[in-house]
């Protein structure tokens, strides 16, 4: 794969409600920060990809609202609907195709403007599932139970994710919510749909992110070290919940294997220095670490209990706080890429892991119960 780097990035302050801006203005904030970070003007951007979602935005063709603020005037542009990590993939291919030297990719969500259960209920098939009133929380509760039952994982073991990530978020100035909590705090929080309790569930945030990708020759005169894209892939599982084995994430395994192959990684547990993954619910971090090959199937609980995924463990996961710290829904995967890139650059501030980061992993999810996954491997060289 031709050498392409992330040369700039920006994210907004994520919050429960950003009342002083509408979503195009959120995007503008992130775009402005990214351009400044890259030390280029909007003229240095050859093409633009927006990632959005008509349902979360309450508008069909919601990319109409974000073109101007992303600098799309006079340029070739497109829009991906799904998680930002997927949008960034398309942005990458528009450079690899030879068409453009730089791509600006944005992703955003103003979750406070909508009613999440209505939005996620719309993901369910109108004929066979919608009338059941399922939403993201209740369907992920089904997956959590299946996964936990199969491997004998307790709610307390899942709670470790909330403790770690919400704690990590305290060091993240952009996070929506960081908190110092204990496993008991998680166990005592309101039960929403067993086994998911309030603190097992990531908050829905308002926020936006932006990254600028550049071909090697355009990545030379920038203020920061370029972060190289070493491997990317994505994959989707079957759709109906009953068609899937919910205690596994085969789509993530496939995506990860393909990304690792591109990056020349043979032992992800040893070779990946830090990972930013999309854990909308605590059980998901355990399950995704298995799908990513950081441990064997069912081993996610031991991995976290061992301290290996703590900020200064040997495979830190979500030093930024992950989705527990901020979950601007469609932007989540793009922000993971951004946070992983910062680790590679060495400018993640108080979130920076101690060891030198040679390879970082970022991950985004689309659909219900992690049906579709996108995996990015970023590198220092």
């Amino acid at each position, binding site marked *: *794969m031709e050498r392409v780097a992330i040369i700039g990035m920006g994210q907004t302050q994520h919050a429960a409600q950003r009342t002083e801006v509408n979503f*195009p203005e959120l995007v503008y904030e992130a775009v402005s920060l990214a351009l400044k970070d890259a030390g280029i003007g909007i003229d240095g951007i050859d093409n633009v990809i927006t990632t959005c*979602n*008509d*349902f979360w935005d*309450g*508008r*069909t*063709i*919601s*990319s*109409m*609202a974000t*073109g*101007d603020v992303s600098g*799309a*005037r*006079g*340029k*070739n*542009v*497109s*829009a*991906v*609907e*799904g998680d930002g990590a*997927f949008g960034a*993939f*398309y942005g*990458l*291919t*528009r*450079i*690899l*195709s*030879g*068409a453009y030297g730089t791509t600006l990719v944005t992703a955003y969500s103003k979750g406070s403007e909508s009613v999440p259960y209505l*939005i*996620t209920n*719309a*993901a369910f*098939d*109108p*004929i066979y599932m919608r009338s059941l009133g399922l939403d993201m929380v209740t369907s992920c509760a089904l997956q959590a139970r299946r996964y936990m039952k199969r491997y004998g994982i307790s709610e307390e073991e899942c709670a470790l994710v909330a403790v770690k990530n919400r704690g990590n978020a305290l060091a993240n100035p952009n996070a929506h919510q960081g908190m110092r909590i204990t496993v008991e705090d998680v166990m005592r929080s309101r039960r929403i749909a067993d086994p998911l309790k309030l603190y097992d569930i990531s908050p829905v945030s308002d926020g936006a992110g932006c990254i600028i990708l550049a071909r090697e020759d355009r990545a030379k005169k920038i203020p920061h070290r370029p972060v190289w894209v070493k491997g*990317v*892939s*994505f*994959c*989707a*599982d*079957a*759709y*109906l919940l009953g068609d899937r084995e919910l205690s596994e994430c*085969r789509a993530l395994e496939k*995506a990860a294997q393909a990304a690792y192959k591109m990056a020349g990684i043979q032992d992800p547990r040893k070779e990946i220095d830090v990972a930013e993954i999309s854990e909308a619910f605590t059980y998901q971090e355990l399950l995704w670490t298995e799908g990513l090959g950081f441990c064997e199937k069912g081993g996610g609980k031991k991995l976290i209990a061992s301290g290996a995924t703590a900020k200064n463990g040997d495979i830190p996961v979500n030093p930024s706080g992950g989705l527990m710290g901020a979950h601007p829904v469609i932007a989540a995967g793009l922000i993971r890429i951004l946070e992983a890139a910062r680790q590679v650059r060495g400018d993640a501030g108080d979130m920076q892991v101690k060891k030198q980061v040679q390879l970082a992993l970022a991950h985004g999810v*689309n*659909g*219900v119960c992690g*049906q*579709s996954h996108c995996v990015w491997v970023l590198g220092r060289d």
Partner: protein
Amino acid sequence: MGKRVAIVGTGQTHHRSIRRDVNGQELIHEAAVRALKDAELTIDDIGGVVIGNMDHFEGINYVDCWSIDGSGGYLKPTIKLTTGGTTGATLAVAGYHMVASGMFEKLLVIGWEKNSESDTTGAIITCTDPIIERQFVAGAISGLALEAQAYMHRYGATPRDAARVSVRDRRHACNNPHAQLRGEITIEDVLNSPRLADPLRLLDMCPRSDGACAVVFASEDVAEKICPTPAWVLATANRHMFSDYTDVVEMSSLLSMVEASKELWQKLGIREPLKEVDVIELYQPYSWAGLIWIEDMGLCKKGEGPKLLWDGVTDMGGELPINPSGGVVATNPIGATGLIRCAEIALQIQGKAGARQVSDVKLGVATGFGGNWWTDMLAFGKKKPN
């Protein structure tokens, strides 16, 4: 440098105003199966799926995930794009880049829509800013009527001129077994059809359709092994500008078409598109666009569109046939429509267009329209690009 990319197979459903016999996934599946059959490939040969529609027309979120049953995306990379009416063309452009990047060797691109499932106007209105303009935008038809009014006022064209466009396309559609409206109409039929929003009448407008289109994009490494005449992607150009409808000040010209076509012709080294392009599938949602936008893309000077129509230049057998498939006024499953334009051009290049075949096609252009007066353009050629 990227790979060269071609369309090696296409498939479409027989578009109808309402397909009661299938749900959305099954509609998608029909088109996907036909495209694979046309390319003589199986789903196992496909590296990934790119799919699109306009969300609020079917009311389903995360369609890339939902459509797996029909699209063949099971345990494959699957991604969704949506850009309103331009979706189909946007999908084709994405198919091009994703294969040209070397990330995929063979990619299945699917556009679909089941417009019968919703109140189309009600859904389209949600594209507007809820605070600034949603209260007074009355849907796509009145928006287009504004353009027609502005054009008439500036250049003196008449509803009769516009009607000539509908007559052409409806006649062309008779040659297309996939088209929804297959019956010739006369100028008088158009002028006497029910009024919608002045000066537009029913037969000036496109229908809404249930339909799907699937296209297989393949890289140069395999394209010529898959089909004898791949339709090579030569260039793409698009402009999605303006945030709100009220940003669009000049309406007698489609600015995005002016800019996108300039870029496209420049990339192709084309000075006189009227002479150098062999066929165009124009995303023309209503008759007047067939006058206005052909001027904006440089086929003739502003105001001279009607002359091209009346001289028969754009008819089958003319110098530059437009919409041999019957175009959008004959068939409009919105998420598919832009991709159908690409599929039709591919068929023209491959010599597989049957009764609607234009002779000796070396270079064809497909366009997409939608969103906030946006334009997408793709050029396809018979000869492998350098």
